[in-house]
C-alpha cells in the first residue's frame, strides 16, 4: 500500500513541478503535447492522474506524521484546478468559461470537505479558530484579514469596473443546418439523394465500400494504404480521381486548409474564423459528402447567419471550379484524412 502511495505521491510531485515549470517558462510548454482531437480525453486523464498523485501525497505525509490540514487541502486543490485550466490548456479558455469551471469545482470541493460531520468539523475548525482569536497568532491573522478583505474586494471591483478593451466573445455555429437542395452551375442537387459521381468501383458504380478500402490508414501519419498509390501510373478510376482532386486541392485549398488538411495553411494565421481542420474528427468525418458539396460550392458568403457569412473568407468555389472539380476535391479530402463520409442511413 505504502509503495503504491509513494508512486502516487511521486507522480503528483513530478506533475506539479512540470506544471509550475511550464507556467514560469522553465520547461517548454509542449513537453507533454496536447494532441488535437484527443485533447478533452487527455485533459481528463491528466487531471485524474493528478488527483491520484495528490491522494498518494496526502497519504504519505499522513504516515510521516506531517498531516496536511483538510482546510488547506480543499483550498489548494481548487487553486490547482484554476491554475491548470488557465495555463495548461491551449488555445486559452475565456475567463467566463473558466469562471464556470471555477464554480463547479468549488461546489465539488465543498461537497468533498463536507461529506460527513467529522470532515466538515475539521474543515471549518481553522476558520473558527481565526474568528475566535484565542491565541496571539490567530489574533494577528484575524486583524490582517479584517484589513485585507475590504481592500482586496474593493480592489477587485475597481479592476472589474474599469473600462477594458477585451475582445468580445462571439460564438459561431461551425456546422449550420444545410438547405434541402442547392443549385450549382445551373443544376439543382438534392442533398439527401445526391452522390459523389467519382466515388465509384471499377465497374463505374457508386460504391463507398470499395473506396473505403483504398483511403489512407487511420494511424500516425495517415499514410496511403499499401498498393493504393494515386500517383501510380496504372491508377485508374477512384484512385485516379483522388489524384486529380489532390491536384486541385494543392492549387486552391491548401493556402488555408494546409498541406496536411489540418487548417494550418499559409494564410490561415490571418483569418478568423480559422480554416476548418479536416483531420479533426469533428469536421468532415461528421458530415455527409453532399453537405461538404454545398459548403464548398457556396462558400462563406453562402452560410446562414449563425455561421457568420460576413467573416468567413471561404470562397464560393462555384466561382473558381467546375462541379466535377468540386466533387473530386471532396473525394481527395476524405481519402487524405482517412475518414468515411457519413451516409444518410
Amino acid at each position: 500500500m505504502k509503495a503504491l502511495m509513494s508512486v502516487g505521491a511521486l507522480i503528483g510531485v513530478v506533475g506539479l513541478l512540470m506544471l509550475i515549470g511550464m507556467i514560469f517558462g522553465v520547461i517548454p510548454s509542449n513537453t507533454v503535447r496536447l494532441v488535437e482531437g484527443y485533447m478533452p480525453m487527455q485533459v481528463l486523464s491528466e487531471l485524474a492522474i493528478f488527483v491520484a498523485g495528490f491522494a498518494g501525497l496526502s497519504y504519505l505525509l499522513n504516515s510521516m506524521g506531517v498531516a496536511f490540514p483538510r482546510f488547506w487541502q480543499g483550498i489548494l486543490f481548487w487553486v490547482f484546478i484554476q491554475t491548470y485550466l488557465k495555463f495548461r490548456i491551449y488555445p486559452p479558455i475565456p475567463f467566463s468559461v473558466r469562471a464556470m469551471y471555477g464554480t463547479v469545482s468549488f461546489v465539488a470541493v465543498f461537497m468533498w470537505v463536507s461529506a460527513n460531520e467529522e470532515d466538515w468539523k475539521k474543515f471549518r475548525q481553522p476558520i473558527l479558530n481565526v474568528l475566535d482569536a484565542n491565541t496571539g497568532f490567530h489574533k494577528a491573522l484575524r486583524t490582517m484579514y479584517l484589513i485585507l478583505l475590504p481592500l482586496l474586494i474593493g480592489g477587485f471591483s475597481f479592476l472589474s469596473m474599469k473600462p477594458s478593451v477585451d475582445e468580445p466573445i462571439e460564438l459561431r455555429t461551425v456546422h449550420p443546418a444545410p438547405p434541402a437542395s442547392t443549385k450549382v452551375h445551373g443544376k439543382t442537387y438534392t442533398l439527401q439523394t445526391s452522390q459523389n459521381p467519382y466515388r465509384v468501383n471499377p465497374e463505374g458504380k457508386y460504391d463507398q465500400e470499395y473506396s473505403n478500402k483504398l483511403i489512407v490508414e487511420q494511424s500516425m501519419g495517415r499514410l496511403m494504404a499499401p498498393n493504393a498509390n494515386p500517383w501510380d501510373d496504372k491508377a485508374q478510376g477512384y484512385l485516379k480521381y483522388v489524384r486529380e482532386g489532390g491536384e486541385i486541392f494543392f492549387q486552391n485549398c491548401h493556402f488555408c486548409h494546409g498541406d496536411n488538411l489540418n487548417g494550418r495553411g499559409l494564410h490561415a494565421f490571418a483569418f478568423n474564423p480559422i480554416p476548418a481542420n479536416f483531420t479533426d474528427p469533428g469536421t468532415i468525418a461528421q458530415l455527409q459528402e453532399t453537405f461538404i458539396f454545398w459548403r464548398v460550392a457556396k462558400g462563406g458568403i453562402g452560410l446562414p447567419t449563425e455561421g457568420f457569412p460576413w467573416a468567413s473568407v471561404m470562397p464560393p468555389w462555384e466561382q473558381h471550379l467546375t462541379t466535377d472539380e468540386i466533387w473530386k476535391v471532396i473525394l481527395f479530402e476524405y481519402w487524405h484524412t482517412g475518414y468515411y463520409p457519413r451516409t444518410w442511413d
Partner: protein
Amino acid sequence: MSKFRSNVKPTLAIGAALGAVLFTTIGGGPVFAEELPAGFKAGELAPAPPADMIEAGKRVYFTKCVWCHGVDGAGDGPGADRLWPRPRNFNQGTFKIRHTASGELPLFNYNERAPDSGKNDLFDTVTHGLPGSAMPPWEGILSEEQRVQVLSFVTTQLVKDRKFTDKQESQTILQMGSIKPVEANEESLKKGATLIVDKKCIECHGVEGRGDGNAFNLKDDWGFSIQPANWHKCWNFRGSRQDPYNVRNIFRTFSTGVNGTPMPSFADNTTVEERWDIANFVNSLCERDGDGKPLGIDPQTDKPKINFVVPSAPIEGEISNDPENEMWKKIGRRYIAMGGQITHKPRNFVNRIDDIWVKSLYNEKNVVYLIQWDDRTKSVAEGKLPWAPTQVNVENFGVKEQAPKTGEEGSIASAQNNYAVYNDGIAFQFPIKWQEIPAPFKPRYLWGDAKFNADILKWEADGSLRSFKGTGWDQDFEERDDFEEKAKLLKAEWKNGQWTVMISRPLKGDKDDYDEYTRFDVGKYIPMVFFAWDGHNGDAGRKMAVSAFYYTILQPPIPQEVYIYPAVIAVGVVLLEGWMLTRRANKKKGKVL
C-alpha cells in the same frame, strides 16, 4: 585571416580572434584543419539508409510531399506554380538550412532522431517546417520514424546530381554545441551594428534590415527572384526552427550561408565573436513589445499572437502627425495579420504584405489611425492608371490571378518582380450603420453588402486619400467627395522598407445621424477590416492583402463611478465583518441574536 584548429578546446576557442591567432602560432593539429573556417570541424559522412527504410519513405512521400515537390522531386508538383518561394527542387541536393559549410550537403543521418541536436539538418527542417514558406512543421503529424523514412527516400532517390555517401563529398560541421555565445550586451550590439555595414549585409538587407536593399535583382540558383530576409520579422526566418527569438539560429545561418541563394557564408571573413555580434544585433531588430520583450508567438501558427481589438486612446487638443511625438509613443500598437485575398477572382496567392501595425488616438472631432507596415519597394504607378479609382473589377486591365498550371516559366515565382507596377495602398472599412446591426452581425468583410454598406477610406501611394461607399465585393465603389475634404492624410512616408501612413477622419458626418458615414460612439466596439496593396506585387483591385474582422473602440475616459463604487463596497465588507464577529462572540457566550 584567423582560423581555428579543429583540436582547439571550445572553452578556449570562445576567446575569439585574439585566442585564435595565439593558437595558430603555437601550431600542431592536422594540416587540413588550417583551411577550416572558425568554429567548424571536419565530420564524417553518415551511413546510407537501409533499403526498407527508403521503401517506407516512398509511401510517406507519395502521401504527403508529392503534391508540391513533384513525382521526381524537382519541385514541380501540382501546387508548385502558385507558390512563391517555389517548393524545393531536390535534384541538385541544394538545401538552405544547414550546419555544414557553404555548398556542402546538409547533415542527414537516419540514426539521429533527437530534434534540434544540430546533427540532422533535414530532420529538423521537416520537423519544424520553413516559416514564411508553404512548408509546414510535420512534427505531430508524421512520427519521428516516418520523418526519417521520407528523408531516406528523398536523399537517396530524389537528390540526383550528388550522393550523400559519395566520398567526394565533405561535411564540415559548425560546432554549435561547443561554441559559447557572446552575451547580447550593449557593446556586442554596437559592434554588430557597425559590422552589418562593414560586411555589406545592408546592401541586400537594407539600412534598417527590412530586406529592402537590392530588392529586385536577386535570383536563386534556378533563376527565380528571391527576397532578402526582413530582420524585423524573425518568425518568418526559414531557419527559425519555431524558436524565432533564439539568436543561435541566426548565428548558424550567418555562419553556413543559405545554399542556392545569394546569401553567402560569412565563416571565412568573420571571427566567431564577430558573428555573434552580428547575430545579436540582427536578433535585437526583431519586433518586440513595449517593454522590449519578445512578442508572444502563437504555437498553432508560429506567428505573433493576435488581439482583435484596436483601441483608440482619448487625447485633448490637436493630434500630432509625428509618430515620434510623446502622445503616440506612450500608447501601445496592435499587430494586424494580413492574408492574401483568396475568396474572389483575382485571388492573391502571394501577398507580400503579411502584417501591419496600428495605433490610434482620438479627440473631440477626429479619430486618427497610424499605420506602419514593411514593404520592400515603394511603388507608384507611372502615369495615370487605366481604371477609375472607384472601379474594383479590374481584371480586364491585366490584373489577373496566377493560372494553376503553367510550368516553371509562367509560374508565380517567375512572375515576381515582372509585374506592371501599380500604387502601394492601404485602406480600412467600418460598417456605416453598425448601430443598427447587433453584434456579432456585420456587413461582409469584403467591402460590405447590398443591405449594409461599408464606409471605406483608401490611401494610395500617388498621395490620394479617398472616401468610398462599398456595397459588395464586386460592386464598384461610390466616391464621396464631401467627406474627402474632412478626412485628412496627416503623413505618408516610405523609408528604408517601411511605410508610415497616418489618416485622420471625423468622428461623424456633418449631421448627427449615421445614414451616410460611420459615426464613432465612445466606448462601443466598431468592426474594422484592413486592406493593403503592394504595387510591385501587381496588387490592384481585389488582388490585395486583407485582414480578418477587428474591432476598434474609442476608449472612454474613466468615469467617476469607477472610483466611488469600489469604496462603497469596501465599507460594506467592513460592516459585514463587524456583524459576523459580533454574532460569533454572542454565540460563544450562548446568546442567540
